[in-house]
């Protein structure tokens, strides 16, 4: 009987399992997880701490028991895999036991990145990635917090700012980058978001590196380059994540993540990778890149499972980076790549419905930022993807009508359609 190991049970691992069975795989599926919990969504941790979601809500695919029943799994809980031989497809567990498989899916995800600065391991310093992180912060907040410094102006960072601010805690948001959402927002859009945050009473400290976290009589001091000290009760680290690639031996090609092709196959036969630990194709750059998004992990997991099950021509062409974050009565949407230089156009939507910023390079749309109008985000994302795969891509009457309905000026629509 065929045997497949799924290493890591998050979004990608779950979808690999689901897809294996959906495509008729009748072999054994062994799931190795370093927790005893069902697949969790890291993005939901801040919603749990904010009280918008019950504990069970962090596990969107249900309980381990229900998953085991539905997909006939051999679950190895709290069983971290410590090594992998990519030639023999043999894995080693913490207790030294080994097992061999016909196929392996590496779905080990990513971990919160903690910079190697003095004081980063202080008990008053929190990360926000895992269910444990969420519980720890929740507990600390219940014992009373007056001030906090959020380090990292990321999508997680802003959700932490929001929930702390709502609790009446004095919040400072600090980042080494010059602006908020440095990997997704164009500088002018970021400046507008910062203007609004400032108006809400959030302290902003950009362009200064974090050098240390020191304990003081009153609590903590977050020390920034240039001598600034930010006194606070707690500090929260959310500068980004790092792919968990420790299991990739020399037989597996590695960049920042585990490099995969359009079938989610790594450079080692029989070994696949999916989700935040891997680098798939970025359709805009044509290169492999970690695109650490929930939906992307689902599609990659699905593709890995289908290929192992032998489904014909199941490939995943790749994706573009895309983010939407809803916070403090604002929506920020970033599509494409802000690193590509090009021509900028700004369109204000009428009646305060938001704004759209576009970047084009060589008659090609490369980046879209939308502020406050989530309703048009799906049409514009689809259009951007279409321009990458089709000559003379058009919005079509349904897309055009939807944009017009949301007050998108004809000038913007014509500009978009005239691009290629």
């Amino acid at each position, binding site marked *: 009987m065929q045997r497949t190991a799924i290493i890591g049970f998050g979004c990608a691992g779950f979808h690999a399992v689901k897809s294996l069975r959906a495509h008729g795989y009748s072999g054994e599926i062994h799931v190795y997880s370093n927790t005893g919990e069902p697949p969790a969504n890291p993005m939901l941790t801040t919603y749990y701490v904010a009280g918008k979601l019950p504990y069970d809500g962090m596990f969107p695919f249900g309980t381990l028991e229900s998953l085991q029943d539905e997909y006939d799994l051999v679950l190895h809980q709290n069983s971290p895999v410590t090594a992998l031989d990519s030639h023999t497809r043999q894995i080693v567990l913490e207790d030294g036991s080994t097992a061999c498989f016909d196929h392996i899916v590496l779905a080990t995800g990513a971990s919160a990145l903690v910079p190697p600065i003095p004081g980063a391991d202080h008990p008053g310093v929190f990360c926000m990635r895992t269910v444990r992180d969420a519980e720890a912060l929740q507990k600390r907040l219940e014992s009373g917090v007056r001030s906090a410094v959020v380090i990292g102006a990321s999508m997680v960072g802003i959700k932490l700012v929001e929930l702390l601010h709502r609790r009446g805690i004095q919040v400072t948001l600090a980042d080494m980058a010059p602006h908020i959402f440095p990997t997704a927002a164009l500088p002018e859009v970021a400046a507008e978001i910062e203007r609004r945050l400032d108006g809400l009473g959030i302290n902003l400290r950009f362009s200064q590196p974090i050098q240390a976290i020191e304990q003081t009589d009153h609590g903590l001091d977050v020390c920034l380059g240039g001598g600034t000290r930010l006194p606070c009760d707690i500090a929260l680290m959310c500068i980004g994540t790092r792919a968990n690639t420790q299991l990739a031996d020399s037989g597996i090609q590695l960049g920042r993540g585990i490099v995969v092709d359009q079938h989610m196959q790594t450079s080692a036969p029989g070994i696949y990778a999916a989700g935040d630990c891997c680098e798939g194709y970025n359709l805009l750059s044509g290169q492999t890149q970690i695109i650490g998004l929930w939906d992307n992990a689902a599609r990659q997991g699905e593709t890995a499972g289908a290929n192992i099950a032998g489904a014909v021509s199941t490939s995943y062409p790749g994706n573009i980076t895309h983010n*939407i974050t809803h916070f403090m009565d604002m929506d920020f949407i970033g599509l494409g790549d802000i690193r590509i230089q090009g021509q900028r156009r700004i369109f204000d939507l009428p009646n305060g419905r938001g704004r759209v910023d576009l970047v084009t390079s060589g008659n090609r749309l490369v980046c879209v930022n939308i502020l406050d109008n989530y309703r048009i985000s799906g049409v514009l994302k689809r259009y951007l993807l279409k321009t990458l795969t089709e000559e003379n891509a058009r919005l079509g*009457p349904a897309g055009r009508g939807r944009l017009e309905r949301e007050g998108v000026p004809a000038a913007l629509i014509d500009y978009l359609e005239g691009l290629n």
Partner: protein
Amino acid sequence: MAIIIDLDIEKCSACGACAVACMDQNDIDTQRCEAPFRVVFDLEQTDSQGHCKYTYMATACMHCTDAPCITACPCGCLSKDASTGLTVFDNTSCIGCHSCAMACPFGAPSFSAEGKMQKCDGCATRIHCGLEPACVRNCPTGALRCVEDTDYKEEHIERSLKRLASLIQP
């Protein structure tokens, strides 16, 4: 069985009856800025010869086979109705993140005044009870209709064969 809610744009006049029926069926609270799930619009476009062309349409959720909103939802609120293939939802765990809106190529998901996602579910409950969706039931021109996908595909093959025949006939 899979259900398709089809629109014949030759028959649509963008009269809005479908949107009103949708508001009524789904208790859309327009006073609190909620919008019906079916969006009606007319497009005025000029072709290369300078002629004006009007398109009338009523769009809602397309109930995609491989619906991108389902995998995009971080909370697992969206799913496929097993018996009809319609994309249905349970917004109990909805956190109002708008991820489904960004995933949908048609801008179909909308949000209640409380910030919870709601969308066209094809009136799945009505269909289970042997009724038509409210928008279909109320379309005065017969532009909207509810068909099973097998019938729909057969019709299409027939139509394209007819078109081919008309093109190649002497």
